[in-house]
């Protein structure tokens, strides 16, 4: 395997970061002088735009850089977003949504211990579609809590989660105690 070049290192970092990174930050992470980072950035920019097999390019703005998709792919990105939104909810997504509805406000780890399955992808999808909202957990700053969005409840024709069918009994079902205890034990 060839040694990873600085270009490939920068691409990986920008890919994950998702937001513009300053040259200073890049040079710190790479442990390289700023001058070298600048040269490598120019190299990466050329490499990406000349490579017709790459769908990405570099946006450089003042002192920051960001990785993005090439402009000519805009219609594909739109098609992707649309198809993601219009997709029927998977069974997993519907289950996560129902847990959020009947147990709101609820943390991700609580949802996961009820379903017994990791659900980070599903949660992102529900957030993107505006079906759920997240806010800081008043009890634990490291975690978010999730609740159905106001618009979604409105669409369901209920004013609050309490108006969901059998809310009283289902939200307090004793089987939930089994996993709640488990979560507490594990933390």
């Amino acid at each position: 395997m060839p040694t990873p070049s600085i270009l490939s290192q920068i691409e990986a970092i920008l890919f994950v970061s998702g937001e513009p990174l300053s040259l200073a930050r890049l040079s710190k992470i790479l442990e390289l002088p700023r001058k070298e980072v600048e040269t490598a950035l120019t190299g990466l920019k050329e490499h990406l735009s000349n490579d017709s097999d790459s769908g990405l390019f570099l946006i450089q703005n003042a002192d920051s850089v960001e990785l993005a998709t090439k402009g000519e792919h805009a219609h594909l990105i739109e098609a992707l977003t649309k198809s993601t939104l219009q997709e029927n909810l998977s069974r997993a997504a519907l289950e996560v949504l129902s847990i959020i509805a009947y147990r709101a406000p609820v943390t991700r780890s609580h949802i996961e211990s009820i379903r017994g399955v990791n659900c980070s992808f599903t949660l992102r999808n529900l957030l993107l579609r505006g079906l759920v909202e997240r806010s800081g957990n008043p009890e634990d700053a490291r975690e978010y809590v999730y609740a159905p969005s106001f618009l979604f409840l409105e669409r369901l024709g209920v004013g609050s989660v309490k108006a969901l069918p059998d809310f009283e009994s289902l939200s307090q079902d004793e089987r939930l105690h089994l996993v709640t205890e488990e979560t507490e034990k594990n933390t």
Partner: protein
Amino acid sequence: MSYQVRLEQFEGPLELLLHLIEKEKLDITRLSLSKVADQYLEYVGQESSITLSGLAQFLSIATRLILLKSRALLPLLSFTEEEEESIVDLEHQLREYQRFREQAKKLGERLQAGRGSVVRESFLGTSVVFYPPPQLTALHLRGAFVSVLGEIPVYEKLEEEELSDIITLEEKILHLQNTLSERMETSFRAVTESVESRVEVIVAFLALLELVKQRFVHVKQDEFFGDIHIHRRSA
């Protein structure tokens, strides 16, 4: 005891058996299995922390080892097709387990090696669009939640209860000894009259074998599958 190993170190019977074979630097063959049979039975006999469900697994393998051992002692003894198959199965199972145990070690090292990949958060920078599934109603949500509740594993509680309900070989041996010191004579059927599971019958049988080995009792069986009469030996 020449070699002290606490059974708790072993999660299951295959792990124990493989450990014994590898300790003797043997390959997985019939001969090796019959060689380590005694050690296996000894460990299972000593161990007091096996749960009821765990014990069933330990004993199912114990019976096959006893079969192999008896064959080594009595060459004329022929196996039924079913018994033969159960031995072949055991060898196969051990080999498979050995391969995966090796691989698991390598996997653990790789997961620790710090060469992981990372993906990008989905739809970064895309703003939220309210897009509810058109046909979704509150009743669908209710249905989904009910099915989630139905999937919550209640068995975990059950296993905890089982933990408190351990039957060990040692207890059975004591029980047999007590029965025999009250009455000079008893039978296997009488001893197992009140037991509730097959596992307990097997434990009782192993306990009986142990007592025979310790020369505490002698046994007599008049016909195949007939009751086993147990007599206490006079000291």
